[in-house]
């Protein structure tokens, strides 16, 4: 299972944000980060979790922060709650991936700017949901580039000009 699964966390995230973005990112058509939003995200990421170990890489996943109490806790740090569903599944994917390696963990979505944390737990039904998402991602990526569809959040996206010119 693990061998076949080489899906990155951010791809799971983009799957819920925008299929076009998922496709472009997966085909290395990236945009240079010229936006202040991206810079702010990176800055928060760097400055908030100084005390913890961070950016642990296991295969295709990079976990934001790990803390060992009696359970492993992994955290995903986000700038805002705008894409909560996408962040939820991204974190759920990490939990799912770790569970396949035999590691039980709980997740916490962190919004430092809002001083807010959300618990994420992997159970049987959420694991099944995750599996169907993981089946669908390669289908999107291996197909033709999905036509951009305008949504409200597009104007803030780095791909905005690319998609809509």
């Amino acid at each position: 299972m693990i061998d076949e699964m080489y899906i990155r966390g951010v791809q799971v995230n983009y799957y819920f944000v925008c299929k076009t973005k998922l496709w472009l990112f997966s085909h290395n058509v990236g945009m240079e980060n010229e936006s202040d939003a991206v810079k702010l995200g990176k800055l928060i990421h760097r400055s908030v979790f100084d005390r913890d170990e961070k950016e642990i890489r296991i295969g295709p996943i990079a976990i934001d922060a790990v803390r060992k109490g009696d359970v492993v806790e992994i955290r995903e740090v986000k700038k805002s709650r705008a894409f909560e569903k996408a962040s939820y599944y991204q974190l759920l994917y990490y939990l799912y991936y770790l569970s396949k390696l035999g590691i039980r963990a709980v997740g916490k979505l962190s919004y430092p700017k809002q001083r807010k944390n959300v618990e994420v737990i992997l159970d049987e039904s959420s694991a099944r949901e995750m599996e169907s998402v993981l089946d669908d991602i390669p289908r999107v990526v291996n197909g033709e580039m999905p036509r951009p569809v305008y949504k409200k959040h597009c104007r803030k996206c780095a791909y905005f000009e690319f998609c809509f010119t």
Partner: protein
Amino acid sequence: MRRKNFYIVSDGKLKRKENTIYFENEEGRRPIPISAIYAIYALGSLTVTSKALSYLAKEGVCVHFFNRYGFYEGSFYPRESLVSGEVVVRQAEHYLDRDKRLYLAKAFVEGSIMNMARVLRKNGEDDTEVISALQALSEAEKIDEVMGAEAIARNAYYSKFDTILKNMKFERRSRQPPENEANAMISFGNSLLYSAVLSEIYHTQLHPAISFLHEPLERRFSLALDIAELFKPVIVDRLVFNLVNRKVVTESDFDDRFNGVLLNENGRKKFVKAFNERLEKTVKHRKLKRNVSYQRLIRLECYKLVKHILNAEKYRPFVMWW
């Protein structure tokens, strides 16, 4: 901070000290913070240290070199950070496939013709002859014929220049060397534009040497030549009309000691300043519904090409809408 183009007209040296690039000469030392540089145009005699170059490369800054006559010499095109094998392979496919290549070559010429016509109309001139070249274009079945249609349009277009230009003679298009002042300005403007287009290509996944209208077999970054065709009338020619008719650039800004006529240092300074103002000038984009600079319009053209070769949206050339 928005990155800017830097034009270095005087002679001197570019070096790096810590995280700043310095330009220095007898007149002193001027710091240029790296995060403020988008691209550098070296028009004087410039010495660059390898430390400065490697720092510029790391930050993805292109440096374009011109000789002391203002002719384009070459570019420092740093290793790319945006690389997509898929885009390059598909771009090559659009060159190798005869019909696909013809489609893009025609699109560039169509846009170029439409823009020439726009410029004529904006200057109160008749554009029927230029527009009629579209007929030859639509019948073209080979790249030569596409080029031929472009030449027909361009001749008709240039034939109006002497009525548009108030204080200078144009007569005919001449280059290497330009025979008169107007031609000297057009040549210089075109090489600045070529460099500006190249900088935009650098910031995308497009390969600069795979082109469709021009032959990629040329040594140059020929994709920049293709895209520049669309913008020459809009950016360069309009700028030349403007500078000449408002008497910003006059005969004293040229030098004819050589085997032709060229802008002198003072003339180049004036031209470069006005050229950059053009690049930074904004227009309201109809689809994006936001203001974009002329320079950004070039980038958008690159994005449209990427989408075309990825089969996401058929490429339609930029035509001035204002």
